[in-house]
């Protein structure tokens, strides 16, 4: 366990904020799990519970102007980057107050104001986009950084290798943030992925690190280091964070997936709960008392309740909006024109 050096560096306020964000993600997703069970959530949903330390550790090392690309398991990244859960909830329910006015949903939540360039339904799809975002910033003389979150499964996509190569030769301020949660859908990572993912960066001359993905401060430290390098013009980094997802690949998987993870393994990782670990550390350091931890949790639980109420009250978009936003700056109704209606 880390000592007070980290405390001094981050400051108590930030540490509490990191704990708060982790609670926010956890409670938000628990709510989603319940909604899904009751058939109240359109589409399908992939939960991030258990992995909160990666998103929060990484995004806490970023400025608001920095950008991220995310994955099909992206709620945590979006919340950690500063999203309001009520607008996320509205998006997930397909309502007009959602971040994308109900056009994106869980796997395509976008908010450019927060630097969220999109969660993504295509595994690996966000990686080249992050490279381009970093390229754009470099070209325009900004010192922004882009973090691309992706899974161990995505690390086998060709674009990952292409992107590392391009980022390395162009020295782009991009951080490849691999969340290795041990599984690619229902298959253990080691059956699908050769060697260590972090070693793949070294082949391109990219500084690479492996961190405990359940230790939010370790993740933060590694990302902060990569951010410093990137802002100083030092180019890309690769970080592999080892973690675990508590829930299924997607909610409702039980109907077809069968049992694919040993009970002991799941229990072992629940013991390593990243939120409890940070809470314990902060109380041990005297940053906050146990009752403060409980209070933060209660506040975030309430926030999620309010988010759901907000989302339920938000109206559905006008069906005609389905025809809007195809091309920027143009009026809706293109299809109607084409059909001459």
């Amino acid at each position, binding site marked *: 366990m880390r000592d007070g050096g980290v405390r001094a560096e981050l400051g108590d306020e930030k540490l509490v904020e990191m704990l708060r964000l982790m609670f926010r993600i956890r409670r938000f997703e628990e709510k989603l799990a319940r909604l899904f069970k009751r058939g109240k959530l359109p589409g399908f949903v992939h939960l991030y519970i258990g992995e909160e330390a990666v998103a929060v550790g990484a995004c806490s090392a970023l400025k608001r102007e920095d950008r991220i690309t995310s994955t099909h398991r992206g709620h945590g990244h979006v919340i950690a980057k500063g999203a309001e859960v009520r607008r996320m909830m509205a998006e997930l329910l397909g309502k007009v107050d959602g971040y994308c006015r109900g056009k994106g949903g869980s796997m*395509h939540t976008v908010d450019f104001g927060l630097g969220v360039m999109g969660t993504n339904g295509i595994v690996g*799809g966000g*990686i080249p986009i992050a490279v*381009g975002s970093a*390229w754009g910033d470099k*070209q325009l003389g900004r010192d922004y950084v*882009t973090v691309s979150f992706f899974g161990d499964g995505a690390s086998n996509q060709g674009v990952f290798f*292409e992107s590392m190569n391009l980022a390395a030769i162009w020295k782009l301020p991009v951080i490849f943030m691999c969340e290795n949660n041990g599984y690619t859908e229902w298959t253990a990572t080691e059956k699908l992925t050769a060697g260590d993912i972090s070693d793949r960066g070294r082949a391109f001359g990219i500084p690479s690190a492996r961190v405990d993905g359940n230790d939010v401060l370790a993740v933060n430290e590694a990302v902060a280091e990569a951010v410093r390098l990137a802002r100083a013009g030092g180019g890309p980094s690769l970080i592999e964070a080892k973690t675990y997802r508590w829930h299924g690949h997607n909610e409702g998987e039980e109907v077809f997936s069968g049992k694919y993870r040993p009970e002991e393994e799941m229990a072992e990782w629940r013991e390593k709960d990243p939120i409890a670990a940070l809470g314990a550390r902060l109380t041990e350091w005297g940053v906050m008392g146990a009752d403060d931890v409980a209070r933060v949790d209660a506040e975030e639980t309430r926030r999620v309740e309010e988010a759901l109420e907000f989302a339920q009250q938000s109206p559905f978009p006008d069906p005609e909006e389905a025809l809007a936003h195809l091309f*920027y700056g143009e009026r809706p109704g293109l299809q109607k024109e084409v*059909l001459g209606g």
Partner: protein
Amino acid sequence: MAEERSIYFIKAMYEGLRDAMREDETVVVIGEDVDRSIIGATRGLIEEFGDERVKNTPISEATFVGACIGAAAAGMRPVVDLMVGSFFYVSMDQVANQAAKLPYMSGGQVSLPIVYFTASGPSGSAAAQHSENPHPMLMNVAGLKVVMPGSPRDAKGLMHAAIKDPNPVVFFQDAVLGGTRGPVPDGPYQIPLGEAEVKREGEDVTVVAIGALVNRALRVADKLKNEGVSVEVVDPRTLVPLDKKTILDSVRKTGRLVVCDNARITCSAASEVAAIVSEEAFDSLKAAPRRVAWEDVPVPFSPVLEKRVLVDDEKISAAIRSTLATATV
């Protein structure tokens, strides 16, 4: 508009690119060997704009096509030379799932000013993998604008306009047109996307022709004139958005339609135009619309096989004659 000279199509594209780059320093050009440029449209740019704005990429189509999305979102106007039309297949996730959909899925939050241009279509025994014209596939994606000019003048003005457009635009340079010449104004100008042009007026039949087939259609029209047939030739220039009005107005005047498309006939742009006209101008038709497009096979290598599959002057004139032979309804 300033003085005109006769220049090559490829040079016209270059001038459109150059003018847009002079006007706006966020315009950057990337692609494989774009400094030297085997096709030629980007040749000379690096001398004027340097290697930060004219960048060679590794052979990683999916990644540099996708990187343009991030760069555009960050405030750049990236232009990609994809070299050969079939290379779109290598990068389809980034083109179709990402670039085309992000503005829509975000509920209109972002504009992605990107141009993907490429030489495409058969260029003479280039065989199947280097003869594709994937514009029908991309027209179907939704979220991409698709441009396919038939003359150097249009190429220059449309390139400039495509770069200024806030949306992802795919710009096809029909490969056989690259080395053709035509009058092109000297100074910068733009031709709006989505505006067709009547290239030749006529009374008896409308021929909608796309890309390199515009010249063929004009040639056929010249020949048929001697037989007393008056052909109107319409070049859509932009396939998405399609200028339906100009096409429909022409068909309402002539009552007959032949559509010529350098693509496999199934789900071609020709099919789309024929369907629109059938739906919206049925009453004015004196004969069924005819499509002249490729046979539904990959483009073969041997010259005799290739000729069998592709569109030529004879196929166009045969289609025109057959619509004229149809009894008036």
